[in-house]
């Protein structure tokens, strides 16, 4: 049996991972700098968005394909009282409430003038934002649920 040097292999993988995250940070930095230089419009950031989306999708698909997510869910659910799927729903809904609260508060503070208007704007925007978030949340939950089943490859 041929022996590979696991230490070197692990170190190479580690550097590969670090390089990936470094690239992502540099792309994010490039977007921030471009926004400073060219102003608030998002044109000219297409290539950065494309790189981020493609690499993110690739990472997610490979993660699923190799069955890492399914195995992680298995190990997690064995040692935790709350299963991963329940945690995802709680965290997802919690994030939705927080995002909607931020939008609602912002509208109340920025656009309303009287006290009554503030309350009205807050609830209106909060509820509207939450209603928009629900379908997004459902799609994400469904994708995550499907992804945590066994992937195609098994090694």
């Amino acid at each position, binding site marked *: 049996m041929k022996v590979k040097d*696991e230490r070197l292999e692990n170190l190479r993988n580690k550097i590969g991972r670090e390089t990936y995250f470094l690239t992502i940070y540099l792309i994010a930095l490039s977007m921030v700098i471009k926004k400073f230089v060219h102003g608030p419009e998002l044109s000219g950031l297409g290539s950065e968005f494309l790189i981020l989306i493609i690499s993110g999708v690739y990472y997610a698909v490979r993660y699923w394909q190799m069955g890492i997510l399914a*195995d992680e869910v298995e190990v997690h659910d*064995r040692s935790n009282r709350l299963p991963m799927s329940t945690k995802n729903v709680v965290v997802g809904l919690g994030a939705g409430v927080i995002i909607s609260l931020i939008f609602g508060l912002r509208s109340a503070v920025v656009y309303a003038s009287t006290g009554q208007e503030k309350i009205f704007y807050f609830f209106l925007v909060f509820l509207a934002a939450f209603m928009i978030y629900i379908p997004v949340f459902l799609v994400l939950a469904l994708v995550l649920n499907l992804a945590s089943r066994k992937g195609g490859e*098994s*090694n």
Partner: protein
Amino acid sequence: MEKDLSQEELAKQVGVARQTISLIESGKYNPSLNLCIAIAKALSKTLDDLFWYEE
């Protein structure tokens, strides 16, 4: 493996995924020494019993 443990039970005892145990058994994954020791302890065997084979 002996001691009448299923892959699932062994995985649970060691704290890894069942797939990891399955891949070690079929020789498709090389475990670290720490993991080997944890498996040997879970099965009350020595490393020799589990992983030594004559070429």
